[in-house]
């Protein structure tokens, strides 16, 4: 789970998931909301990629776009989602069904409501086993027991016959994870899986995910708004703001030297980082804007303490923060930092995207 290790895997392998220039928009009577607008990132086998951002920044829509779970009035408008070398956007609904829960599984935010209350936990796990692995009867039961044991639910045989309301919150999330793992997925998408849980249970679930990742060489996409959780679990972090990824870096690098003013603001607003008694916690003023038009400017500019005139007319592209640093990208006119700001602005304006990692 260290950064070095992930860098090593990154260098000599193909990404399992590669999202390129994804745009998902929702059509309302008033406007078209680009919930995800030109997002690109990669996930490699065995690594955990975190996606952080405020509510409404497009994290969950990104996840649902990958799963192709976007319903009308939402639509994937642009981009490619390459999974194992195939574009998920071109898959038929039937092909997509066998991928969902098969090679890509998803764990949702609220464990209290993500299990169907009228069926036993066993029934719901066995449903996944039957769908993707054709198991039924006692074989499925045996497999389900093993899954529950694997996620640390004691007395699995009895628990299998119980209903979700007989499980505690943490146990339910374990059951949901067991269900997601039923068909040995290659990629696990976790949409704020620990947000609804208390801190002790949170730590247990994170630990469980790490163990499972090691055992099964899982790629995990982990969505959260909690920087602490990200620091704990992620190898690489994408910071989202108003539908765009504005910074992408290995986790240690991101926390040690955040480059984008938004990321800096986020990290400064976490309590307990060497604050004296009289110091006030710094905040980012204002709200996330609704991304409803083509970006011709920096969407963070109105709230940015470092904004200058060009920020309102040039849209920043994700770029290496320094010419020798290919692992750390930021979408801000201040970067790359080793050339003058005017030159940097010119590069951003020309749309000359130099992506560090490909």
């Amino acid at each position, binding site marked *: 789970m260290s950064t070095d290790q992930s860098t090593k895997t990154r260098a000599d392998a193909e990404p399992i998931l590669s999202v390129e220039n994804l745009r998902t928009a929702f059509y309302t009577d008033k406007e078209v909301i680009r919930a995800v607008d030109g997002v690109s990132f990669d996930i490699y086998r065995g690594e955990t990629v975190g996606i952080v951002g405020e509510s409404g920044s497009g994290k969950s829509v990104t996840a649902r776009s990958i*799963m192709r779970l976007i319903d009308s009035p939402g639509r994937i408008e642009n981009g490619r989602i390459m999974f194992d070398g195939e574009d998920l956007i071109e898959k038929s609904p039937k092909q997509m*069904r066998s991928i969902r*829960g098969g090679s890509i599984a*998803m764990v949702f935010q609220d464990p209290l409501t*993500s299990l*169907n209350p*009228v069926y036993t936990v066993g029934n719901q796990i066995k449903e996944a086993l039957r769908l993707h692995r054709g198991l039924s009867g006692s074989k499925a039961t045996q497999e389900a027991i093993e899954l529950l044991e694997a996620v640390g639910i004691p007395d699995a045989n009895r628990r299998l016959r119980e209903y979700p309301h007989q499980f505690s919150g943490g146990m339910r999330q374990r059951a949901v994870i067991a269900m997601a793992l039923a068909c040995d997925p290659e990629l696990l998408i976790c949409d704020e899986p620990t947000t609804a849980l208390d801190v002790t249970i949170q730590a247990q679930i994170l630990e469980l995910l790490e163990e499972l990742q090691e055992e099964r060489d899982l790629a995990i996409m982990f969505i959260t708004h909690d920087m602490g959780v990200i620091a704990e679990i992620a190898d690489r972090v994408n910071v989202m703001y108003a539908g765009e990824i504005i910074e992408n870096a290995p986790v240690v690098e991101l926390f040690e030297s955040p480059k984008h003013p938004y990321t800096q603001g986020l990290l400064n607003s976490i309590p307990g980082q060497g604050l004296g008694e009289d110091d006030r916690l710094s905040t980012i003023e204002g709200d996330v804007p609704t991304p409803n038009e083509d970006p011709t400017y920096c969407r963070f500019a109105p709230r940015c303490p470092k904004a200058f005139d060009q920020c309102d007319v040039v849209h920043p592209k994700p770029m290496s923060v320094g010419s020798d640093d290919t692992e750390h990208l930021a979408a801000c006119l201040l970067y790359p930092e080793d050339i003058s700001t005017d030159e940097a602005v010119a590069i951003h304006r020309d749309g000359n995207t130099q992506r560090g990692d490909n």
Partner: protein
Amino acid sequence: MSRWQYFMRRVLMSIPVVIFGTTITFALIRLGPLDPVSAILGTQYNPEAAEQIRTNLGLNQPLWSQYFDFMYRLFTFNLGQSWVIAPGTTAYELIQVYAPRTIWLGFWSVLIALFVGIPLGFYAGLNPNTPSDYFASFGGIVWRAMPNFWLAIMLVTALSQTGQWTNGFFTWQSWIVKTNVVTPPTLGFFVSPLESFMQNPGEWLNELVRATKQIAPAALVLGSASMGNEMRIGRTAVLETINSNYVETARAKGVSGRTLVWKHIFRNALIPLVPIITGEAFLLLGGSVFVETVFAINGLGWLFFNAAINGDLPLIGTLMYIFILILVGTNILQDFLYTIIDPRVGYEG
């Protein structure tokens, strides 16, 4: 506690409700302005005869002793005789004549509501904000808004004149089998169904079709409000379920559309519909008085109405007792259905 223990407990708990209901009934008919003796004698009233009848019927006894007598008879199902409508006929015999028609009517109106209202509601909920949803929803509201008595009269008027309107092309009365628009259904074929079916299946089926056709307009009217209700609630229930997290989890698991609807959505959407459906038993009892009168069906509703306006006290008491039993019974059935559909419903408390 097992399901059966729970069930037994519910039955025991309903006994006080039945006692309370019958007590209120007794209070209403004995303490109200009705004088059974005048009702029996009608225009031939004279004081001696009245005194004679009063003694015979035990109306001179103290009220509490009459009350205990009344309760004891009902609870031992010694349901007494009619005093005014059909003097000397036991309530049993009257119910045997009138109840089958009401049951036949109730059966069809519940069935129509169930098999039209719920599928329509579920369809609308699965295809929200489409033209067909708007059509079904609008229909549901209109259907629900039409009062029983008005719809009944309009339907009778319309059906009676189908012949004139279509120049004899389609006449309701002679369509398939010959029937009247306003008539009690002929249910004789139900007396010993197996035997008469074996003897003459064609004739038996003919009778079944006839009885169904006779009851259809009344059942449509009686079921209309509940049909609209079930449609609306069904639509809302489906919409609520379809947007719930567990349905999304199931989709993320790769469950196909059909399984999603039938396994994950359907059963959850049924939960709020259970009390609506069982609550209809009550509506059907009350509403059937109107509808039976308009369609001249002469069922329990009609019998109860006449017993009430004629002051036939023992008959009212008996019918009320039966209505109370039916209501309490459907309530127990409702709780029982809950425990089957929704595992979260506990057996405690």
